[in-house]
Structures are given as C-alpha cells and as structure tokens.
C-alpha cells in the first residue's frame, strides 16, 4: 500500500464512525419520514396504503388547526427573538465589561437552559397555578386581589404568553453564552481607537459592536427560531395544548396525530414543518450574508 492510500484509509477510519452514526440516527430517519408521509399507516399494521400527496393536500388546504398551531409557534418565536435575545445581549454586554465574578454570572445565567424542560414546565405550572400558585399569592399580597384564583394557563388571553415567558427564561442563557463569546472576540483596539476619535458608548456599540457581531446574531437568531418553533416539552407539561387548543404548536399537533395512530399524516406534517424551518433558516443566512457585505 502506498503512502497516499494509507493516509486515505486512516482518514476514512476517523470519519467512518461519525458517518455511520449520522446515517443510522439522522439520515435514515429523515428518509424514512419522507417515505412514510406518502402512506396511510397507523403505526401498527403490517401493511401501508400508498396515498401519494393526499395527506399533504389535506394538511395544506383543510387543516386550519395545524396552521393555527404554526401561528402560535411564530408568536412564541417573535417574543423570543425580541425579548429573550434582547435580554441575552444586555446581560452579555454587562458581563463583558470585565466585572468581578464574571464566571459566577455565566454559570447562573446558563443554569436554566440545562434544566429538563418537563421539570421546568411542572415547576412553573405550580407557580402559575390558580389554586396554589406562588405568583397569585404574591400578587394578592401586594394588594392585587383580582388575581386570587386567576388561572394564568387556563385563560385564552394569558396562556400562550405565560408559556412563552417560561420558554424565554429557560432559553436566554444559550444566547447569552454565544453573544458573550462573540463580544470577547472583538479587538479592544477598535474601541480604543474609537474613543480617541471621540465616539461615545452608543456610537461604539452602533459602529463597532453591531457590525462585528452580525455573524453571531445570525447564529443566535437561527438557534432561537429553531428552538422556539420546535417548543414542545414545556408546553406539553404546562398546558397540553389547552385551553381549548389555544397553546397548540406544530410539534404538539404532530404528537397528537401520531398518538392517535395517524403515522403517515403526522410524518407529512413533520415534512412540511421541517421544510418551513429550513426555508426560514436559509432566508436568515442570506439576509445576514448581504448585511455582512
């Protein structure tokens, strides 16, 4: 065996486990999901009925509940993109100023994201509870007696926002860490030069920080969009899609159909949802690329 072939073999050896794992646990499920979406199958029967694009047609034109759930996910995503990332950026800017105990803040802010979604959901469900909730106890304590038995998760006006607040609380730590890492890569000389030229803090932020951070903002935005659109565990443990379906998101709908033996239909929903997420991510990358030019 010559040297080049030997090197090629060794290289192959290194990537083979990763390729194998990726193929088994990612590629194959994706291909199988797309394949199943063309069949009517209850997940148990040994035979499947080929229905072509019929299920796609039904979802797109005759399933308003699915699109309503998409709108709910978009609402949560919009809140997360603005408030969650806004808070993450603010905290990252504060911590990047070489303050004392920087690592302690990092750890504290990164704690919520590493907690289990179901556990966080159940804890917050208790906080919001109309009968026992500490939130109502506090509000009543400060004189807002209207909230004595207010069920935050069972009211149409508050349920989705209440879940979104928890989602943002749980998620801002990711953005914080990434943004902080991004801020620390900006050369200090740029700020020093700007100061010499008489730029104030706002001008430094606008003309140095923001342009330098656009690639990082893109990553954070994409992760936020993907994470928020796919919200499931929090919602499932807090409202199960209620009241009256007002907090359903695409994943809970997909899960609902799958749980009721509509495997083919739910995989078609998954494919549509996956394609939409891909499209949003590509648009985001393209916009950021143009802004970066």
């Amino acid at each position, binding site marked *: 065996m010559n040297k080049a072939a030997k090197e090629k073999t060794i290289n192959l050896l290194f990537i083979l486990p990763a390729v194998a794992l990726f193929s088994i646990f990612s590629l194959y499920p994706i291909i199988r999901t797309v394949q199943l979406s063309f069949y009517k199958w209850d*997940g148990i029967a040994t035979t499947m009925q080929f229905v072509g694009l019929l299920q796609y047609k039904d979802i797109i034109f005759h399933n308003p509940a699915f699109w309503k759930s998409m709108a709910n996910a978009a609402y949560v995503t919009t809140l997360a993109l603005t408030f969650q990332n806004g808070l993450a950026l603010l905290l990252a800017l504060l911590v990047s100023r070489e303050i004392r105990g920087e690592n302690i803040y990092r750890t504290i802010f990164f704690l919520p994201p590493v907690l289990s979604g179901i556990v966080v959901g159940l804890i917050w469900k208790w906080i919001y509870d109309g009968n*026992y909730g500490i939130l109502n106890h506090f509000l009543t304590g400060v004189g807002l007696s209207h909230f004595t038995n207010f069920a935050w998760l069972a009211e149409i006006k508050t349920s989705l926002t209440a879940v979104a607040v928890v989602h943002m609380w749980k998620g801002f730590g990711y953005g914080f860490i990434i943004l902080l890492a991004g801020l620390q890569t900006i050369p200090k000389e740029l700020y020093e030069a700007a100061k010499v030229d008489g730029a104030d803090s706002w001008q430094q932020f606008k003309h140095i920080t923001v342009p330098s951070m656009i690639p990082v903002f893109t990553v954070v935005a994409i992760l936020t969009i993907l994470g928020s659109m796919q919200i499931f565990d929090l919602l499932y443990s807090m409202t199960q899609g209620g009241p009256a379906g007002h907090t359903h998101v695409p994943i809970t709908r997909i899960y609902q159909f799958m749980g*009721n033996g509509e495997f083919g239909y739910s995989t078609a929903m998954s494919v549509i949802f996956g394609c939409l997420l891909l499209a949003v991510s590509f648009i985001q990358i393209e916009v950021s690329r143009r802004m970066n030019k």
Partner: protein
Amino acid sequence: MLRIVRLLIACALLVPFTSCSQNISRKADVVIWHWMTDRQAAFEKIAAQYEKETKVSVLFETYAPSEVYRDKVRAAATGKLLPEIFSTLGDKREVSSFINAGYIADLSADMQTGWKSHLFDKPLSQNTFPEGNEWKVKPGIYGVPIDVSAIMIYYNKDLFKQAGLDPKNPPQTWEAFLEAGRKLRAAGIQPFASGFSEGWLIGVFANSYAWNMLGEQGILDTIKGTIKYTDLRWLKVYQVFADMAKHDMFASGIATMVNKDAERTFATGKAAMALNGSWGVNVYFSMNPNLNYGVMMPPKMSLGEYPMRIFGGEGSSLNVNATSPNKDKAIAFLKWMTAKEQQIQLAQETKNIPSNQEAAGGLSDILKIFAQNIKNTFESLPVSESWQVNNVINTDMQAIIIGEKTIDQAAAEIQAEKMRQSGAK
C-alpha cells in the same frame, strides 16, 4: 488490507444492533409491561408467589406515564419486541390494529374453560369483538381484565356540611346539583374539579349526558350520521358545561387541569366535588388519609329520557402476545392472577375493584358503591366515533367552559368535523 479493515469496522458497528434483538423477553419466563406505578410492589409480590408455586418466573416492568408506555408498546410491536403480556392502552380501533397485525392472541378458547364465568361481564365485553364489528376483527375475547373501574363524582362531606348541604343526600337532579354548586360557591368553596385538560375525562362527562339524552340507539345513530351533532338532544349535552360555567362551578384553571392536579385539589379540600375513577380511592388515601368523602352518580337531567350511564367496566386489561413462544405460560399466569385468592389480595393491597366477581365481597363502602354501579356503565358499542370528532367535542367543551364559544358554535364545529371525517372515509 483496506478491505479487511473496512470489514472489521462494519462488523464492530453491527454487533450492538444484532445482540440486542429478541433478548427483551428472556429476562423471565413471562415478562409483563405495565404503567401502573402505584401497584408495582403488589405485582412483584404476586410474581414471587407464582414463581414459588409453579417455578415459572414472572417479571413486571413499569413504564410511565401512560403516554410513554403506549408509545413504547407501539414501537415494540413494529420491532417485534413485545413481551409476553402487555396492554395497548388504546381504544378498540387501536386494539383491533394490534389484533389484525397478529400481535394479540385470541383467548376465546381458554375463556370457555370456566375462566370467563368468574369475571365481571362488562369488562369482559369490552375486551370482546363481536360478529360483524367495524374493525373486521375475527370475533373473540382478546384481553383479560385484572380490575374493574367506574367514574363517578366524589364529594367532600365536610365541605358539604360547611356549605349547609346534607352530606347524606348528595344532589340527585341537575337542578339540585347546580343549587349545591351555588351554595358551595357562596360559602367560599370551589364546587367542582376534574382533569378536564385530559380530553378523555371531559369526554367521559359529556358521554354520560349523551347516554342520558340519546340512549344507546341515539349514540349509534349519531356515529352512523343519521343524528347530527347539532340535534337538540346534543345541545342539551353541551348545555351541561355551559350551565356549570354560568353557575361558577368549575375550580380555577379546570380547562388546563390534569387529573393528578384535580386529585390534589380535591384531596386537599380545595374543591368539594371531583369527577374521578374508582382508582381515586387509593390516590386520595395516599394524599390525605383523613379525607371524609362519598361518591354519587352524575345527576340526571330532567329532560333526559334514558338512564344515566357512567364510564367504566374494564379498569386495566392485559393482552397476551400471540407471537411469544411462552404464550401458554402467559395465559396460565393470567388465569392464576385473576383467580379469587389473588384478586382478593390485589384488591386489598391496591384498593381497586377486582375483576373476579367472587373476590368483590370484602370491599370498602366506597368501592362497593362503585362495584354496584358497574352495571350502569356504558355499553360496549360495535362502532366508534373517529378520534378527530371526539377531539373537537373535548376541545369545544373546554371552549364553552372558558366562555369562548356558545353551545351553537360548538355544535356547528363538531358537526362540521363529523362531515369532514365522513367525507375522508
């Protein structure tokens, strides 16, 4: 050389996948998957006794919550990894899929040997597929009930007394029920809690009134499509929720309340009444052993032409894996488990109603009321409504509770879904 290396890597990657298949059922002679976490200790005791008597090892494995269990069973079925005994935890349509795919054994022949005569008829009929059933299942008995349950309204006697109500005479009519709610609310007590976030419980309550207003034939005609969900009798069913909402009977957050929360709300005296199953006796005992309560039938509507019915019959049923080499051992164990002595033991330890009629003698007063009302549970129907229609009913009843929809709007939506599903078929 390169080929040998590639071959070795491929073999190494395949080893874990080949070695894990088919091993799952060999942990014991009979492996049973179940979701009843509160009964694991009692089950283990029973299994140990059986092994001592017969030398056949039995292993109970718990997977919870029930949705996770259900998903696991489905996945195991498609992977041909089902244990000897399991339950689908689904409705008849789902069970029929398992049977038609060959995963569930027909126990009719074994039942004819005297086994059947010891068990309550109702839960057995729910495990039976009659001739000409809509799911095209070969007629037969496909499951073994291990206990019996019914869903009724629990009421807190102390809170009733506090509100000036007679705890010995709970409300029998719909009007008296609403009046009781008014008195409870006036005394600062939340009248009614239940896990209405879980679609099935709100559906159970609605169904009780559907049986009351339409009777069996009316329900069958609705499923067939000859009676519409906008029919006046159905409007009366939806009116139940509107009336209760109007009289402020629901506990805070009932529309997103899971049953575990509702059980806690009732057990801690935060609500005076709760719609719950007979398993609640065990749950309330574990939450508050001093809770002073009674049970009552959901009160009949004055316009209801038919007897009031409640959800119930089979509590938990188990199925035998038709493809297991230890199928006979599994059936033998289930026969032994549903025999009088074992059923008495399980009933005492788990505070449930046994499926063996001969073991129902020593029940507590509350469980006796449940057992007496097994005869009033819904009849097993040869057809079922689509899950999508049921889902719209459940969701729209929540919408009525929170004041989002009127009963006419809900009726129109349910009928529209019915038409949609009829067209889809």
